[in-house]
């Protein structure tokens, strides 16, 4: 599988919007691209195999309630 490019392209934004069935007005595509790029930059820079095993676990206490891990 080819590696992901570090930045989101405009074509990728359009493809994601098409797959999600979400109508993004053409005039706003660049803005959306900026939001996506900023949020995803740390993730695209991440080597997922190198992250220590700090998984997003949910823990359960003995009293029966679910507690989101803090």
């Amino acid at each position: 599988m080819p590696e992901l490019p570090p930045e989101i392209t405009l074509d990728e934004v359009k493809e994601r919007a098409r797959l999600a069935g979400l109508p993004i007005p053409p005039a706003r595509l660049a803005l959306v691209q900026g939001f996506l790029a900023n949020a995803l930059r740390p993730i695209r820079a991440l080597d997922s195999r190198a992250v220590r095993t700090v998984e997003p676990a949910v823990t359960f206490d003995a009293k029966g309630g679910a507690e989101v891990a803090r």
Partner: protein
Amino acid sequence: MTAAELCYAGIRELGGLFRRGELSPVDYATDLLGRIERLDKSLNAYVTVTGERALADARAAEAAIRRGDGGPLAGIPIAYKDLYATRGIRTTAGSAVLGDWVPDFDCTCVARLQRAGMVMLGKLITHEFAFGIQFPGHRFPPARNPWNLDHIPGGSSSGSGAALAAGLTVGSLGSDTGGSIRGPAAFCGIAGLKPTYGRVSRAGVVTLSWTLDHTGPMARSAEDCAFILQALAGHDPADPASAREPVPDYLAGLEGGVKGLRIGVVRDYFFEQVEAETVAAFERALAELGRLGAVVRDVTIPSIHATPSFMVIMLTEAFAYHERDLRTRPELYGEVLREKLMVGGLFRADEYVQAQRLRAQIREDTARALETVDVLITPTALGPAPAFKLVHDPDFPFAKSNMGPFNITGLPTLAIPTGFSSSGLPLSMQISGRPFDEATVLRAGHAYQRATDWHRRRPPVAA
């Protein structure tokens, strides 16, 4: 004390006046309602003023105080961000989507403060669904900053910040998903506490992002935040994230000072893009805390630069909440908000998971930093409040956030004023502590506020 001074009095002072019979809670509520009537036309902090309810609450509080069973909040006025469900009172979330919703229940926080004897003045404007600033023509126009009406008061608890700065309430509740308590506190020169995730119930408060949402008090001082937190904190089975940690006495140690307190400063991420005046005010505040006996040292959080990934979590969760309405009645959302929310539908599942893994890494690194110091102190915002004309540019980007890291980590964080810009707008720092250690955060903030008077300065609109 003049009427103008009285509208800025703190909870301890007001409580003393009420208990000694020197001031009637009914008269006080009446005066504040009159002040709202006079000043809020230009500020637009309130969506709904609940005058009759306020007077009924005040009469009940006065009777309780006379019987000798009124608590420290009896008769103290409060107003709620319009995300907090209030029985029989419209709760709009600042959006046409919920513009006519009248809940048949009180959310847990409102019920708790009602039981504590607080007097409900009304509901305060919020950015639409705690996320999207209102553009001209919106059904619910935005609040304005009392320090300069051409500038935003911050958001999303915008009405809360404006009302407190203008002396239109004594306390308020805000919500904070990426800085929505601390941002308005910073821009309006007031105090705002985002408690530890799970410390204060979110049941009955309109959601933005489940794993990042916090509820908490806003007031004009750290001490007033402590009073309100005391009545709010504690387990609520109606909020699945609510903690069972015991609730300490937040006022007991408030006067303890900061002698020997170890303060950590993260010098890289939190100072990037921060304006020079904000940094200068921050350094003066650190020096003041040092003079009071605190020990300041630099610390590092290696993964802190991954903070922007929290937008993946926030937007994905927000989209999950809003998807049905976005697809079936998108015209009811503000245009720019609608597009921001839709971004949340463009992330992939693996990206959300990776963002949560990065979040765990940031949380772990921050916890490690807090093994060597008692609190972290950072500039709250990058600069003073921006002008409406800037943020009303539809292409205005998400700014880098100094506040998001403490939503990711869930740590208790207090924003308090540190001075003013050359343009006369408030500046702020935030004090963050270990999980459930609000007491230390509030003690540090209170010590700083005893030594400074930034929180006693009043905006021109309130003169």
